């Protein structure tokens, strides 16, 4: 096994799945906190608010100048895995008020204890149910300029 699991990425076009894995030099408990506590989620995602922490709890992820995206906790197996469903369908052209099966995708974090800390894997699925891929593509393109800078910074930082 190499140490750079950020390269162990898989894009599976046939199943519309995105998978990423990263090794983190922190305990499972700390990684679990980073991916489940709204205070921390707000730092790596959008400003997070939830009405609870159990499956079925709902909330929002908010980005200044963009709006609030509804999100729902789908499954929790603390501290091994948690699944979130978020309204990730940019092609709709408007933000829905709630998450439904047809306007959202699901991302699942899985944590495994390793000798050096925790291996964190995220799998996002469900892109086949969202609307017009071409329109989504165009919408996503607008995020690319910024993503590119971040990607370069990430690569050059030798993360």
């Amino acid at each position, binding site marked *: 096994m190499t140490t750079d699991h950020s390269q162990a990425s898989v*894009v599976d076009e046939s199943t519309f799945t995105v998978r*990423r894995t*990263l090794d983190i030099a922190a305990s499972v408990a700390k*990684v679990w906190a980073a991916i489940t506590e709204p205070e921390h989620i707000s730092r790596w*995602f959008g400003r997070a608010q939830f009405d609870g922490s159990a499956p079925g709890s709902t909330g929002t992820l908010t980005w200044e100048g963009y709006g609030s995206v509804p999100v729902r906790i789908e499954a929790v197996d603390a501290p091994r895995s948690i699944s979130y469903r978020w309204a990730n369908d940019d092609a709709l052209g408007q933000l829905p008020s709630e998450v439904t099966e047809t306007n959202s995708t699901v991302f699942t974090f899985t944590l495994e204890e390793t000798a050096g800390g925790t291996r*964190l894997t995220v799998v996002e699925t469900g892109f086949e149910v969202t609307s017009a891929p071409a329109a989504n*593509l165009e919408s996503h393109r607008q995020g690319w300029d910024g993503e590119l800078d971040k*990607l370069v910074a990430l690569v050059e930082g030798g993360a």
Partner: protein
Amino acid sequence: MSTDTLVPVLAALADETRWSILTALGEGDASASALAARLPVTRQAIAKHLAVLAEVGVVEPVRVGREVQYRVVGSQLSATARRLDAIGAEWDRRLAAIKEIAESL
């Protein structure tokens, strides 16, 4: 697709006109003149953009009779693959941030 090849490709695509050209070619091979007729850009400008896209390998010229048409290259550039790549890049960034947060807790 490694980041070594992804970065220049993303840079080439991070342009409104080139994106329009690529989107148009996604519907079928076309010559620079045909693209100029469909897009609000001169044929000369289209030719320049096509050269940029060809340089990073996302389109290639194909001679058809007397004209040169361009076509999109590779499955990486199917709409879905592009979209999933972009989503993957977002997750790379988020996981890096999660790592930083967890390691400083």
